[in-house]
């Protein structure tokens, strides 16, 4: 029973971390129909940025969360025009060219990180590292809980922004019907750039938490690319609220398979569920995706 509860808590906490990545990624697809293969690389860059800031400026990496958000917001905003060019070319299948472009971007970022920072494994320590809270019989690592809370809060804030702000309305309009939104005076190009920027900003921030929890190295991104894809397919492509249950499902799947079946089958189980979803409910578990 104790192990069961601990497994449940572990799973939910893993899920909470993945929400942040999933939300931005899903919105990116919903608004621009861009599948960003580089999603894991933004996580990696966020983690490295936190590492270097702590190395040179000291203090706690959590303090740099807003800085990193705005840094990657700016980077995303500057990169978006390139993606726009890739998807708006005269080729037969522009969306797929976008896919290839981000694929190249991922290789570029990963190779750059490997070349610049080498193969060392790095770590950052926060004031919460190694601390934990007791929740009944289960132990809740404080840092993971912070990650979880951050994930949920960021998602809620983001949802509210989409719901109430003027840009949020434009974003939602674009996700529903791009042409119509354009006709009604939405500057779709600018809104797309903003969405992409917010996505890279959020993902970079998630990278700080992930880097603090695990370890930081150039190859860490791949895993989160897998998770982002998984979550988005389960949620239904482009359906942002579906990300939350999908991320929790992914977390629980991982922890329960590891504990009660075998850790060797964890990733296999993830891919199996992904395949089943595509087979049975291609529009996501809630059937609300594209």
């Amino acid at each position, binding site marked *: 029973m*104790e*192990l069961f509860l*601990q*497994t449940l808590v*572990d*799973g939910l*906490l*893993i899920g909470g971390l993945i929400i942040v990545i999933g939300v931005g990624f899903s919105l990116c697809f919903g608004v621009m129909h861009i599948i960003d293969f580089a999603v894991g690389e933004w996580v990696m860059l966020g983690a490295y940025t936190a590492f270097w800031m702590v190395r040179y400026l000291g203090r706690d990496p959590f303090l740099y969360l807003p800085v990193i958000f705005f840094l990657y917001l700016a980077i995303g905003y500057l990169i978006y025009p390139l993606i726009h060019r890739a998807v708006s070319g005269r080729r037969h299948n522009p969306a797929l060219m976008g896919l290839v472009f981000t694929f190249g971007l991922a290789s570029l970022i990963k190779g750059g990180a*490997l070349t610049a920072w*080498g*193969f*060392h*494994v*790095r*770590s950052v*320590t926060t004031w919460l*590292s*190694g*601390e*934990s809270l007791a929740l009944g019989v289960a*132990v809740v*690592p*404080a*840092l*993971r809980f912070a990650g979880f809370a951050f994930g949920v809060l960021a998602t809620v804030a983001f949802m509210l922004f989409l719901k109430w702000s003027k840009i949020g309305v434009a974003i939602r309009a674009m996700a529903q019907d791009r042409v119509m939104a354009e006709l009604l005076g939405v500057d779709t190009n600018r809104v797309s750039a903003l969405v992409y920027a917010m996505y890279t900003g959020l993902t970079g921030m998630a990278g700080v938490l992930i880097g603090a*929890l*695990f*370890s930081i*190295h150039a*190859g*860490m991104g*791949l*895993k989160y690319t897998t998770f982002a894809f998984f979550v988005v397919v389960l949620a239904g492509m482009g359906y942002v609220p579906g990300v939350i249950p999908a991320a929790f499902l992914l977390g629980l799947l*991982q*922890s*329960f398979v*590891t*504990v009660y079946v*075998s*850790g*060797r089958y*964890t*990733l296999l189980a993830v891919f199996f569920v992904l395949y089943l979803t595509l087979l049975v409910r291609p529009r996501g578990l809630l059937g609300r995706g594209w």
Partner: protein
Amino acid sequence: MREDCLSRLNWGRGLFLILLVVSLLSLTVSPTTGAAPARDFFKVGVVTSLSGELAFGGNVTKRGYDMWADTVNQLGGIEIAGKRYRVQLIYADDQSTPATAAVAGERLITQEQVDFILGPYASGTTLALAPITEKYKVPHITGSAESPLIWQRKFKYTFGTIPPVSINAQAPIQTLAQDVSPKPQTIAILGIDDPFSKFAAEAFRTAAQKFGIKVVRYEIVPEGSDYTPAVSAAKAQNPDIFAIGSHEKAAIEMIKAAKELKFNPKAFVQHYGMTTPDFRKGLGKDAEYVFGASVWTANLNYKATILFTTPKEYAEKFKAKFGTEPDYTEAASTAAGIAFQEALRQIKATPPLDQAEKDALVAALEKLNIMTFYGPVKFATSGDYYHSNAGLQPIALQYQGGKLVEVGPGKLALAKPRYPTPPWDRR
């Protein structure tokens, strides 16, 4: 409508294509490579990972090989029958992939006509290179690869200076079983699904069974998964020993997870990964009390005569040259060069080596029994660990006061093992 090249194909082009195919089909290997041109230095091929995922490890072996070659050349070369012959290292990057390791071997042997080869960092690339050195009958020593798979294959021309991980990883378990009291009763083992780590995890299990420690959980998890659930499951068994079979990255994450989950076994056991600087930097003071294994440290009391007299002298010269402390892989790579050097001296072969001399070199390597700064080098000539170094004793290590200290097994201890590990909140 797009028009492709072939739709405009005419007879002239057709004939050209057919000719091209026929000439491509008739490409074949030149029958003999011929004798190497005369030279008065040894050409040594080095295949290792200078790029790709294993570049970090590849550069570790490179430092070891460079240390050997540069020290030999400073002395004027290898002394053979009264005359000194310098050595020249020729590097070929294996890009961390087996296919490139094979091409690299092919290039060094047929293009560069090297006399012998110092091998790659990883086992996978070594397993692709070994058939090539076998085909061309070129002696090959690896200073790093240690997977038992290589030795099971019984390659005649391939040797290795590091004993297989399945032997080494037993050292800390043996120490805990024999040198501490009360003796630990139970062990939970968590391994990563790669060959090196899995052999280590299996070695932990074998050793535990041999020394009467009950294995309460044995789990192999894939690299890169979230280790918290697996650590939670180990914690639920409340074992005395928590053993981690992995490279340093997973070990760091698992020990972090153990701390967060307030998992307090009486001993944390790792093996090679814990000797790396990244492990210590990554965990900080949480690395304290962790047990590990190695086959070489700079504190050992070996007395040698070839190139370096003691491990300490090697470590000092190494640090002066590269600015970092040498670990066992660098030492073993240097020792691989020393093994060649001694075997060459014994058979009095001078460069370039012809085939008879290469075969004599292999025969000499099989008989070799020397004492180096790295310890005894003596290659096994039978059994499951054919041609791996059987001369060495694995050592159990522990972090004590931020330093790696030799704690066993038995008489190899330079300090007493600290056991049990205090709980996280009382460190």
